[in-house]
């Protein structure tokens, strides 16, 4: 048996997996980094993005590309608005207490997930890809839409990077992350920064959901796996470190692609979850992070 086609397929699948993971995990990492908040409902924002893409595809007639383009903008905005409201209505009122936040975001998880069950129904639903061009390799045909996912994800991450490093908004976010009280003394409205960061984090997850849905069907329970994988990535990359998160997303995505081609996905999930729990116990700063701040 020739191994090359399998390896190529695993590599391609791993890249697609890694780029979606990069988006969701960056959202989680940003929220944790700036707000010191673990958002357990993060996977539901991913799911809402996917459901939003399906809604757009249903509502907008014409070629699937138009509906998709609208979804890529409208769904993250809508999800961002939900997250913004959740921050104001729930998280701010409990003062971002770490344990209370986790309990509350579990509550939010159930509310969003079950609302999707009521509104969207229990069935998985497919969305047509915006274009269906197939790329030829010597062994198999590969949908070029999947490579488009990779491109969009890289563009979004680059944009986030530029905003954080090069704009005033990014400076304010980083100042808040670095020292909340001093930032407040300098007149930064920390509460607004928090709401904005929570919304942006959710929007990144939602964008991941929109991108994934032509490739994988939308379903109200689809938020669980991305949440756990994002946890894995954020912890391995070092809590709150963006470069670490990106590196870890690529590493985990690729290895998950490889492992799932050759082993059972459940076994791969058991191994990676156990590994990460041990990382968190014995090396809490993550594999790429520096000592805890």
């Amino acid at each position, binding site marked *: 048996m020739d191994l090359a086609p399998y390896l190529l397929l695993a590599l391609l699948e791993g890249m697609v997996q890694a780029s979606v993971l990069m988006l969701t995990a960056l959202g989680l990492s940003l929220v944790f980094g700036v707000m010191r908040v673990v958002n357990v409902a993060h996977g539901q924002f991913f799911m809402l993005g996917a459901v939003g893409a399906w809604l757009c595809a249903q509502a907008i007639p014409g070629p699937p590309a138009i509906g998709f383009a609208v979804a890529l903008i409208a769904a993250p905005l809508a999800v961002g608005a939900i997250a913004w409201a959740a921050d104001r209505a729930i998280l701010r009122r409990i003062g971002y207490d770490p344990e209370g936040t986790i309990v509350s975001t579990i*509550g939010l998880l159930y509310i969003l997930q079950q*609302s999707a069950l009521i509104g969207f129904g229990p069935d998985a639903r497919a969305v047509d890809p915006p274009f269906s061009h197939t790329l030829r390799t010597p062994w198999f045909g590969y949908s070029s839409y999947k490579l488009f996912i990779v491109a969009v994800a890289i563009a979004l991450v680059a944009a986030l990077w530029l905003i954080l490093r090069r704009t005033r908004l990014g400076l304010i976010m980083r100042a808040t992350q670095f020292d909340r009280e001093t930032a407040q003394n300098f007149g930064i409205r920390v509460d607004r920064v928090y709401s904005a960061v929570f919304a942006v984090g959710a929007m990144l997850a939602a964008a991941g959901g929109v991108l994934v849905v032509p490739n994988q069907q939308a379903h109200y329970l689809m938020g669980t796996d991305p949440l756990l994988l994002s946890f894995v990535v954020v912890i391995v990359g070092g809590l709150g470190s963006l470069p670490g998160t990106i590196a870890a997303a690529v590493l985990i995505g690729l290895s998950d692609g490889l492992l799932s081609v050759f082993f059972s996905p459940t076994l791969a999930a058991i191994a990676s979850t156990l590994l990460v729990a041990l990382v968190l116990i014995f090396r809490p700063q993550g594999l790429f992070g520096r000592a805890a701040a």
Partner: protein
Amino acid sequence: MRSANPRLLLLCAAVVAALFALQFVLSEYLVLTATRILILAIFAMGYNMLMGYTGMLSLGHAMFFAAGVYAAGLSSYYWGLSLPLAFVLGVGASFAVSLVTGLLVLRTQAVAFMIVTLMFAQVTYLTTLQFSDITGGDQGLTLPTGARGFTLMGIAVDLTRDSHRYNLALALFTATLAGLFALTQGRRGRLFAAVRENAGRTEMLGFNTFRIRLVAFVVSGTLSGMSGALYALMFGYIGSAFAGFELSIEALLFTLVGGPGTLLGPLLGTGVMTLLIDRLSGVTSAYLIVVGALLIAVNQWAPAGLLGTLRDRRLPWLK
């Protein structure tokens, strides 16, 4: 011997007496519900030992419940172990699991502790799916009818009869209540609260806080496993749902609603929530939305829960 907290002891005795009397009043269906509530209350009381008294919020207690479920259920299913033996094996297995996990996860605290317990529980859940040809996976296994009764010290117990199940559950609930009363009230009980309120100062006073945490963790995990073993053998079914995230959250919800750090809070929380969830799941398949809303509401407006609020306002001995 003078009791550490005589008023609470009296209240506990009254509650147990009332629970015993309940079976002569309630309909057959409600006795069955009450049996489930008593068994799940043991789970919530175990959870409360860690979360309420010692201040460590775990998101993975389903793994201990599942350890009890599977050790008891599988040994009865495959080896035909008699029910008391299978039960003891279930309790022993959850003791071992909680000791080993405790030694690992107690190196972390607060948020990291929550995530690590969540991940260990997820590993347990995935393991029950991975080995589904043994465990039955999602579908689960139904214990054979031969394993639905036993004779212990001349008393024949038939687990297909409602009254037998109820009184057995009540006996174990009472034993748990008595054990936790002895552990949490009085001088030794204050050590757990001391770790919860200020671990650094407790250590300064010369106490080994790691050991106090470990004791709380193992007691908590073993009680959860005991509840799991009881649940599996009592109702003759084991399945992956007993290791799922939802069950860990239910223990948290029951404790939060009833009142963390109160001896009778978990019973009250389990009772209220089980009745509510049963009623709701008849109305809609999306009943978890109410669980979510309650988690947020209790956390925001009444973090002390029902009995905790009562304790803070009126009855300081209710702990």
